[in-house]
Every structure is written in C-alpha cells, then in structure tokens.
C-alpha cells in the first residue's frame, strides 16, 4: 500500500511525477503484471488480470457481512453448447478443486470475454444431478428401459470386437458414427479414416446444408464470414444465426456496427429478437426470400451500382456467355446487357406479389443495400435456406448481392469462411477411406452438401444396407430429425442396427434405444480444438478438461481425463484412441499407427502429445508467443485457451501466385491456370473445394486476371461462379444461375385451408437437446407454443392464448398451446424446435428432470400415438433446486409429425410444413402426437421421385463432382459408379 502523505507539494513538479509513474508502470509490466488493473468492480466487461489467474480472490456474497474469501484458479475452456465455441473461464476452487462457476474468457478473440446465457449455464450441466456417470449396458430388450452398470473395459472390448470383425470382413460400411453439432475440427473424421471407414454422418442436412450449398456454388467455400462489425449494411435472412449459432460473437459485432451507424435489415416471417433490433424488418411469405433478393439485385444492376470492375475480374461471366449465350459477342458489354435481361422479371412488384411485403418497402431496402458499396455483410443459414424446396437459392442470392457490390472479403463485407478459419494439421493424417457409404451419400443426391442423414431410416427400410455398429455422439436423432418414430423403428430393429452405442452426457430420446450408453464429458471435461469465422481473422480455440489443467498447475500429473471427471465420465479423444488400439492391438490392420506416439513409437498416443504436437508444429506464431512467456505451446493453450493467428486476411483470392508454384503451367479456356508443382504443405487444413486437375494431372493453382496469375477461388473456374457448370452438367441446367425456386409451401402448392408452419427457429437460451439439463436455461425457456396471428386465431375460433390447437401435417398431428401474437405473419404459424422433450413411462432409471414429460407411446393400425402421462414437477435430488421447479409445461415434440422433405439438389431437409390448424378435438391433450409411419414412407417416396440420380445424370459416370466439399472425402477410386448399383439406371 502507498505510504500516507498528509498533503502534496503545493506546486508539484508534474514532469518528475509523470516520470515516476512511467517508471512504476514499466517496472510492473516488465514483471508481466498489469499496472492499470481492470476495473472489474466498476465496469462490465472487465476481467480478472491474467497474472492473477492462479489465485483469484472473490468474496462470498452469501457470507456478507463477513468477509469470506474464495480462492480460485481460472482455467480456460470452450463452451460446448452451440457452435460459436465461445471462450469460458472456469473458476476452480483452490481448496475443493471443484468448478464454482463459468464466466467469459477475455483472451478469446472470437467471443472477447462475452457469453450468452448458455455459456455460464455449463455449470448446471456439470453439476446436473441426473447426468450419466458410468457406462451402462442394456439389460432387457432394446427400448425397455433396463440398464446395468458396466466397466469401460467391458464396453471397449465388446465394441472393438464388433468393429474389428466388420473391418476384417470388409463390412466397413456397416460402421457409422453420427455426430451432432461437431464442436471440434475433424478429430472424429480422422478416427474413421484411420479405420478405413466412410462412416461419418452428421446432422448438417437437417441444419445448415441448404445455406452452405448456395455459398459453395459461388465460391467453393460453404459458409460466409460476414465482417458485421465494419459493415454499413447488415443483411440477415432470418434471425437464426444471430439468435442461435453465432449469437454471441455476431450479436456483439452487429451491436458495434449499429453504434457506428450501420443499417440492419432482417427478413424473417417471425418477429425474432434480431428483427426487433432491425432498421428494416420484412416479414415475407415463407419461401419468397430469394425473390426479394433478386429484386434488390435487379435494383443494383439497373441503377448502376454494381461493381463492374470487380465483376469483370472475378465472375466467370465469359464461361456463362460461352455456355448459355453463344450467339452474343464474348464481351463484357454483352454480359452486362445479358445480366440486366436475366433479372428483368424480378421487379419490386413481382417480389411484392410473391412475398406479400409492400413493393415500396422492398424498394427502400433495395436502395439501402445498393448504397452499401463494399461494406455489405450478408448471411443466411438455417430458416429460409433450410426450410424450403430450393432454399439453397436463398443463400446463393444473398451472396449474389455481395458479389454484385464487390463486397467480397472487403472490410465490412462478406468473406468466405475459409479465410477466417484455421484447422491445424494434426500429428497423424490418415489416408482417405477406400470405401463409399451409400447410406449417407446415395446416388440420387450427387450434389448433396452433406450426408443424407435424415433418410437413414428409410434407406435401412428400403434394404439398401444395414448397420453393424452405429454410434451417436452427443446427438439425438430420434428427437432432432423429422419423422423420429421411423428412427425409433429402425433403432429397435436389431436386423437393421446390430449394435447401437450412444456417447452422451445425458439421457435423450435416442439413448433409450441403445445397447451401450457411454458417458462423455461436457465443455469443461473434454479436449477439442476449433476455429470459426467470426471476424476477419483466424483463431484457434482449445477445449480442455479444466480440472486436469488445474491439477497440472499444481504439479500433479494426469494421464487419463477420467481421473478428474465426475464418476467415470470420459472424453472422446482418449476413448477413440483406446478403442482404436483395441480394434487393432498388434497394429496388423494398419489402424494403430495413427494412434501411436511419435515421440515413443509403439506406445499409445496421449492427448498431451496430440495437442502439443499440433500447437507446436501447426499453429504459426504460437510457439514463439508461448516461448516469450516461458511456456510451451501446449502450456500456453492450457493457460489462455485460444490464440489468434492472423487478423486482416483481406482478399486472399486476389493474391498473386508465387512464381515457384508456376512450373509447366497450362491455361484453360477461361483463364483457369494449372501447374505441375505439388501443392505446398500448409499447416492449415481448413476444408474447401478441391478443383479437379487438368487432363495432364496438373493441379488448379490460380486464375488469370489480366496478365497476372492470382490465387482465385477453389471453384472449377477459379472465379466466383455466377454460372455453375456443375449444376448445368449434373442435370440441373435450369438452376445454373442464382434464381428463385418456388417452395413446396408456396401458396400455389398448398390447399386453400393449409397454413405454413415455421418449425425451425431458435431461442437464444436453448440449443436443441445439447443444452439439456441446464436448470437456468430450462427455467428461462421450457415450452414452445404455436405462434398464431390474431386474425387467424379469430378465423379459427381460438379465443385466447393457451387454448389448445391441433396442427395436422402430412403424416400426423400434434397438439399444442396457441400463442396469439402479431409477431407472426397472417396465414403462417410457428413453433420453436427446442422443446417437447419426453421420456418413456417405465424408464425408471431416467429422471425427467425439468424438461421431459413422461409419455406413453403406443402403436395401432392407425400408427403411433404419444400421450403425455405426466408433466414435469418438482422432485428430490442432490440439487435442492429441483424441488423448486415451478413450471409443468414443456411443450410438444413437433418434429415427430414431419415427413422427410429432401431437396433434390442440396439434400437439405426442407423443414417448413403445410399444415391444417384447427382447435383441439375432444380428448386431445397438450403434447399429444400421432404419426403414421407408413404414410411417412409414401411422402419419402414422393420426394425421392424429384431427384436426378448420378447413374443417369452424371456427366462422367462418377457419383459426385470431385471438386465439391465432402466430409471425410473417400479416395478417388471410389467415385466411379459401380456397375452393380441398383440406382445406376434410374430413369429420367
């Protein structure tokens, strides 16, 4: 403390005093400490200085007025709820070594110390009294609900034995790992590659693949990275992203942009949280969004605001003219004229007629967009792109606007995600599998963005294959997918699924039908790395078991994460390494080598070595930064949790290709440049398109722009593809340009008494079933009433909010409460997808917690019927808060009543439903669900008729364009269509 002085000098020597302060600051900072401490008691957004992270002291507020100190170690990790991967700081009590709370990690470049409600609620998940703590083995029949505790050894041996036999017997395609939101960058894919199995299945085709498709066809990279913070105009199709996936990192940057005068435009049929903050909220008829986008595009073109020099250099307009307008002179003037003609029909009046939004409003919005110049950031993810037949054209037409304005990878513009993402090369990189999984990548969907995951039950019922061993990993297919009861039917059929292993921290609607339930850790109990596009920079984040890191700070050695996790909860990294060793104990299958130590060949790879190698060798700048603090790269990441690799990437496509990469070059007809030089190794293995080599095997290295070879885009042409030769040559020439496809819920496609149901929208406080058992979140959001406009309510005789509705889909119905609100467009109803959790009666080992109703589920000639037997109520547990549950209504599981709607191009499930809404009928109770899975088969078959299978339409007798992105892309020899394929000769 400072010495007490009674007075200061009457005429202070300010110069000397300043010098003294400077010296004190320099001395403090030389010790690595902070002179000006964060004003954590005064200003929100200030954080404990990092030099105090080993011993951070807080007073116990409950002990007041006594001063009781809590000493904590602050250990970073990463949230595991939504995909944003925001940084968390675990406050680990130094005395008890328990995590007391989670707050934001100020060292994280993406989230910058901020979190949404889901981050701090991780503490609920960690301390959940109902979580699964030990491996469980099915005791009765599948789905009967009887379990017995097993050891990890028993589980590992049994599963490894099945896997080994399948691999040895050439049944690789009977192995599948189905992942929910990955929350990690490629670890599981590489495990499967090491097994030689094309068994990666994801949830993406019920999530974002429609959005991705539109972006990929433009740029070869399947998601945008909008630089919202510096934008002049922010254009969001639906609020999904800003409410869900990237709520925290994006919302904080949109807020900054708004403070700087940016305009926010939101197209969302529903008045979302984001829409309430928008300068322009447009509530269009669902599915008409692309028509509005094209009307704006037309306005940009016709008013001379298009960035013609950018278009000249970077669009594949020459290819378009050659392919589609050969009669025109191959000049840019021809293209400009053609472009104007192409979109002439998309007047404001046309868009107004399609969308129901006033033409003058669309015109006003168009003018704002046209004035954005290169500071236009746009995004479309789920919602419209994920809900409509042809929804992928929504994201494609959003990027169209950016491409017209030249706002591509500009400050305040829209970047391709790969510019702002860094996936470090791992210690082992197994080769591509030599098999092709037709259950995930069927011939009918050669352009599907991701695995046709939601069709799996139907493919199994079709007899297209079977699964010997099926894993779900923190994923709940029965609940998440449409037509969940078809999932249940195949999961309970041992002929179709031989063994079902659920890797999950908590009970869920799928795990009830598993043979093995294996407990995996939450955010603070597992290792992962990740990197997401959230601004124009690249960062890598590190999720870690915080108690392991805390013990290591105290000098203890932890070699197995189970040593610090509750019960016998494990993590996937160590689990898969161990499992792989048991599949191939002597290395004879060639699997073990990818799970062995490099430092000590023949020994098992540890997570310390895995991540230590990665951080040391594949993250530029990290070893140096760590060394400056006297740390190894791994120690640095364990201490700070994230590292920013670059900032300000800019227009990478514009970079010249270095001369040493230009050897024995060839130039294609439209300027694509190929080179005989091998691709230089990069420490960043971020996924992106892989343009095919030329006939001589030269790789696509760049594109000619003027006289310079520039890096270009990973598309076939090397440019932004206004015209997609891929779509044209794979049977969809009518959609080769950005356009508008009328949705399956377009008024022309619905009966007069049908309404559109928006069935997929997020609340910022939940994330599907991933956020399960978080009591704070459950208290905030636990039900999902049906939004209905007052005019519709009056028409249907629904008198008041809370009245029961019956919503009838193509295959069944659900009964839900009405919420009468002007926040929804007339003629449309909406129901959030987070709620309606259930457990089966008789499953006594499963607690219903605060979110699961107890239901009966029966089958009759009319199909399945689910009925709520008991709503949630207070219950006794180790957490006294479970006695304080004040709500009983946990909503309805609407997804069960949706048939599958695969988009024939993107493969996306089109979520919107044409429904009939009536008042509930006598006998209906809230939460009731009825489903006819036979009818679901008919709807499936009808949508499959719209596909154009590769067997008929492939231009080169392959299954899929090789350049398109694909998780766990198999080796090239698997791409040709086998002659035995039953789909090969499907008719046109």
């Amino acid at each position, binding site marked *: 403390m400072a010495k007490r002085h009674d007075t200061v000098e009457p005429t202070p020597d300010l110069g000397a005093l*300043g010098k003294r302060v400077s010296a004190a600051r320099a001395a403090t900072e030389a010790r690595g400490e902070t002179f000006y401490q964060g*004003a954590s008691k005064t200003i929100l957004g200030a954080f404990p200085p990092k030099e105090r992270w080993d011993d951070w002291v807080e007073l116990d507020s409950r002990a007041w007025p006594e001063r009781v100190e809590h000493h904590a170690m602050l250990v970073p990790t990463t949230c595991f709820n939504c995909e944003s991967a925001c940084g968390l700081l675990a406050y680990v009590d130094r005395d008890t070594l328990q995590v007391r709370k989670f707050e934001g990690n100020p060292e994280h470049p993406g989230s910058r110390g901020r979190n949404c409600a889901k981050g701090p609620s991780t503490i609920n998940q960690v301390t959940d009294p109902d979580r699964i703590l030990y491996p469980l083995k099915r005791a009765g029949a599948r789905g009967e609900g009887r379990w017995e505790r097993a050891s990890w050894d028993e589980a590992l041996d049994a599963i490894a034995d099945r896997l080994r036999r399948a691999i040895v017997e050439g049944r690789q395609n009977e192995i599948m790992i189905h992942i929910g939101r990955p929350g990690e960058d490629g670890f599981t894919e590489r495990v499967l590659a090491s097994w030689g199995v094309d068994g990666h299945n994801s949830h993406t085709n019920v999530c974002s693949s429609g959005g991705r498709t539109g972006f990929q066809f433009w740029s070869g990279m399947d998601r945008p990275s909008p630089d919202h913070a510096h934008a002049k105009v922010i254009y969001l199709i639906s609020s999904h992203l800003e409410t869900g996936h990237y709520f925290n990192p994006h919302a904080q940057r949109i807020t900054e942009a708004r403070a700087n005068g940016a305009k926010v435009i939101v197209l969302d049929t529903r008045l979302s949280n984001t829409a309430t903050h928008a300068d322009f909220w447009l509530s269009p008829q669902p599915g008409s969004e692309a028509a509005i986008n094209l009307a704006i595009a037309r306005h940009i073109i016709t008013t001379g605001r298009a960035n013609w020099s950018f278009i000249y250099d970077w669009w594949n307009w020459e290819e378009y003219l050659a392919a589609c307008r050969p009669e025109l002179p191959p000049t840019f003037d021809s293209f400009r004229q053609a472009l104007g003609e192409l979109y002439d029909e998309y007047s404001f009046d046309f868009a107004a007629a399609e969308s129901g939004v006033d033409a003058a409003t669309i015109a006003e919005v168009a003018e704002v967009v046209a004035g954005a110049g290169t500071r236009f950031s746009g995004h479309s993810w789920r919602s419209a792109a994920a809900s409509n037949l042809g929804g992928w054209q929504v994201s494609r037409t959003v990027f169209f606007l950016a491409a017209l304005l030249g706002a591509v990878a500009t400050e305040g513009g829209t970047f391709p995600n790969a510019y702002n993402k860094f996936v470090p090369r791992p210690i082992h990189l197994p080769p591509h599998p030599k098999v092709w999984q037709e259950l995930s990548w069927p011939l009918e969907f050669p352009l599907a963005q991701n695995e046709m995951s939601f069709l799996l039950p139907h493919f199994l019922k079709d007899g297209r294959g079977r699964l010997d061993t099926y894993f779900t990993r923190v994923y709940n297919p029965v609940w998440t997918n449409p037509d969940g009861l078809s999932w249940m039917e195949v999961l309970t059929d041992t002929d179709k699924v031989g063994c079902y292993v659920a890797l999950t921290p908590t009970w869920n609607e799928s795990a009830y039908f598993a043979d093995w339930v294996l407990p995996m850790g939450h955010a603070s109990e597992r290792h992962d790395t990740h990197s997401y596009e959230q601004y124009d920079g690249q960062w890598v984040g590190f999720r870690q078991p915080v108690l392991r890191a805390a013990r290591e700070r105290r000098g203890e050695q932890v070699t197995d994460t189970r040593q610090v996790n509750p019960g016998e909860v494990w993590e996937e990294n160590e689990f898969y390494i161990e499992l792989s060793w048991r599949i191939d104990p002597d290395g004879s299958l060639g699997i073990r080598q990818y799970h062995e130590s490099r430092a000590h060949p023949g020994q098992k790879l540890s997570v310390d070595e895995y991540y230590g190698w990665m951080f040391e060798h594949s993250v530029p700048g990290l070893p140096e930064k760590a060394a400056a603090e006297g740390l190894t790269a791994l120690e640095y990441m364990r201490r700070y949790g994230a590292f920013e690799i670059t900032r300000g990437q800019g227009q990478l496509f514009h970079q010249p290709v270095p001369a040493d990469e230009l050897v024995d070059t060839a130039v294609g007809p439209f300027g694509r440049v190929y080179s005989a030089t091998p691709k230089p190794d990069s420490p960043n293995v971020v996924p992106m398109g892989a343009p095919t080599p030329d006939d001589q095997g030269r790789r696509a290295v760049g594109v000619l722009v003027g006289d310079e070879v520039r890096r270009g885009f990973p598309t076939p042409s090397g440019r932004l593809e206004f015209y997609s030769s891929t779509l044209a040559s794979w049977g969809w020439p009518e959609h080769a340009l950005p356009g508008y496809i009328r949705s399956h819920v377009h008024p022309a496609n619905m009966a007069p008494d049908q309404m559109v149901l928006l069935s997929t929208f997020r609340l910022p406080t939940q994330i599907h079933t991933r956020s399960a058992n978080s009591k704070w979140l459950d208290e905030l959001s636990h039900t999902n009433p049906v939004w209905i406009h007052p005019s519709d309510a009056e028409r249907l005789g629904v008198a008041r909010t809370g009245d029961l509705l019956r919503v009838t889909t193509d295959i069944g119905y659900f009964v839900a409460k009405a919420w009468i609100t002007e926040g929804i467009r007339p003629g449309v109803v909406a129901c959030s997808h987070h709620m309606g959790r259930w457990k089966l009666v008789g499953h006594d080992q499963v607690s219903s917690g605060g979110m699961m109703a107890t239901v009966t589920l029966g089958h009759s000639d009319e199909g399945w019927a689910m009925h709520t037997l008991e709503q949630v109520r207070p219950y006794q547990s180790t957490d006294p808060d479970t006695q304080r549950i004040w709500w009983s209504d946990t909503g309805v599981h609407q997804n069960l009543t949706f048939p599958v709607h695969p988009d024939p191009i993107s493969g996306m499930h089109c979520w919107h439903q044409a429904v009939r809404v009536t008042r509930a009928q006598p006998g209906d109770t809230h939460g009731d669900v009825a489903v006819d899975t036979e009818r679901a088969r008919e709807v499936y078959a009808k949508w499959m008729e719209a596909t154009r299978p590769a067997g008929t339409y492939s231009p080169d007798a392959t299954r899929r364009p090789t350049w398109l992105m694909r998780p766990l892309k198999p080796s090239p020899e698997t791409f040709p269509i086998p002659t035995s394929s039953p789909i090969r000769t499907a008719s046109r």
Partner: protein
Amino acid sequence: MSRSIGAPVATASTPEPGTASLMRAASEERAASGQGAVSGEPLADAEADGSHRMVAADDGERDDGGAIASCDERAPDHRWELLRALGSLSILPPAEHGPIAEALGLAAWSPAEHTRLFVLELPPYASIHLGPEGKLGGEGADRVAGVWRALGLDPPTGADHLASLLALYAHLGEASQSAATDTARRRLAHAARALLWEHLWSWAPGYLAAAATYPAAAPWAALTASALADEALGTAPPEDLPAALRQAPGAIGPEVTVDDLLDALVAPLRAGFVLTHSDLVRAGREIGVGVRRGERRFALRAMLEQDPSSSVAWLARHARRWAGLHRSHGAPAPTISDWWVRRATGTARTLDTLSRH
C-alpha cells in the same frame, strides 16, 4: 489479449478490428458525424503513409522508432502517463490502484472513502456535469461517444468517465508526439485539443473543486487540477464555447416551479454549481433543518418544506461561492469560466428573488 488505450478503458473496450483501421474509419466517420470540435478537419493521412499505429495501439506495439521529432515545444515527456494515472485513481478501487497511488505519492484511500466519493456522491462523468438533467448517460454521454467514433474507436462503457477521458486525451497526445508526418501530428493534436476544451475543461475544474472538499480526495483533486491546468495553459484557448455550454438550457428564472427548481439545483449545467449530499448535510447544520435520508432532490424538497426562506438563501450563498470558484480557474479559458460564473451568478440572483417571496 488486445491492449487498448490507457487505463481502465482498456479492458472495457478491448477494441478489435475497429481500431485496426482507425484512420480510414476516422476519416469516413468524421465526414458523417460532425460530432463536436474534432470534426473540424481530417484526423490524419495515416492511410497514405500506413502509420495506423499512431492511434491504433490495440496491437500492443506502439512503435516509436522512426517517428519524426515532435514539433511540440515540450519535449516528449511523461505527462501522458501522469494524466492516465490520475484518471485511473478515480475508477480503480483502492485494492487495485495501490501501486499507482504510491507512484503518485498520494495517500491510500479507504475503500469506503473511495466509494463514497466516486460512486455515491460525485461520480466523475461528463454527462452528469454537462447534461441538462445532471444525470448519467443521455446527451452528455452521446457527445463523448461520438468523439470515440469520430476517431474510429469503439466507445467503451463509461466513455465519459474522467478516467476514460484522460486516458483518451493522453493517448491522443502520445500519438501526436509520435506521429510519422506533420499532417498526422497536427490532426491528432487537433483532436486532443478539442477533447480538452469540449469534454474535459468544460466541467472537470468544477468537479475537482467539489472533490477537493472531501479530505480524502483533496490531494488527488488538487494534483489532477494542476495537471489539467498545465495542459490547458499549454494549449491555445478555444474560439467558441464548448457545444454542451452553447446548447445548455437557459438559467432558471423566478417563475420556476418547485419541481423544476429541484431538477435544476441538482444539475450542474443548469444551476452553475455542484450540490453534493455532503453540501446538503452542511446546509442542514448551518440553517437548522433536518436532512432527510434519500436522494438529493428528495432531501432538498424536505428542506424547502421545513424552512423555505433559509434554505433558498443558503442555496443562493452556495451559488455565489461557486461563482467565485469558477472565477478562480479562469486563466486558461476565460470564455468557459465566464459562462460558469454567469450561470452560478444567475442562479444566485433567482434564488435571492425566490427567498424574498
């Protein structure tokens, strides 16, 4: 973690790309905003010479190497650090500012004293002293936030806090001294000057005079006032009144209602003086009325109800004391101090009139 400008604002703002392109943003925002005096001329031509580092310190690498010698008559010195440190004491609690106070040779505050002054009785925010309602936020805060934006910076929480203002001023001063070109130096110096007159000198002398009446704060207040006066005396005086004073509501007149009078008396911009809770306690003691517990407006109303004449007369004397205080620090910018003198004197006259009724 990115480092940003100076003391507490650093952790509050953690500016990221916004500051990386500061100069470009500054020039564009400046054209659009017209905020305060900094909008007078372009900030810098740093975009041309690539010297973004001049203001954008968030990369933690303020490279002084290669900077041309400052044209400032005063050689580069440590006055910026002094101002930053003095400001930080007004925001960091004693547990965190010990080494800073020690370096300044100032006594350690007790947490209670510090809280009483800076949180409860005299929160050091420009918006309280320059806003027509005498409250946090609103127009006064917006004006300061506009300065940050005009500079291409993201305004931190509490941008109008004395600590933030001094930190920004110090940063601009440092950046000016290390500027790579004359143009950049001139423009940064211009911004610093505008900040000084518009947002610091326009209210801080009065604030510091009020703070000096608290024994625990007196040394800090005196030192800060000296350092600020030193800056003001070394800077060309403003041609015009600061915008907040130019646009201030008129002085209260004898026709004022009781409610409006109460509103005005707790708003320095309207009354011309600072009236703290301690002042009211003193008034109660001097004129023999009870001071009811509560916010100042409530306590004042109770005093007026008990003895309106004496209470109003005391307030008139308070106003005259403040007119003298304003006069005493008039040297650097007479136009500003004269405004405050007139405002306090006008209030005194009105109160005199009211006390006779």
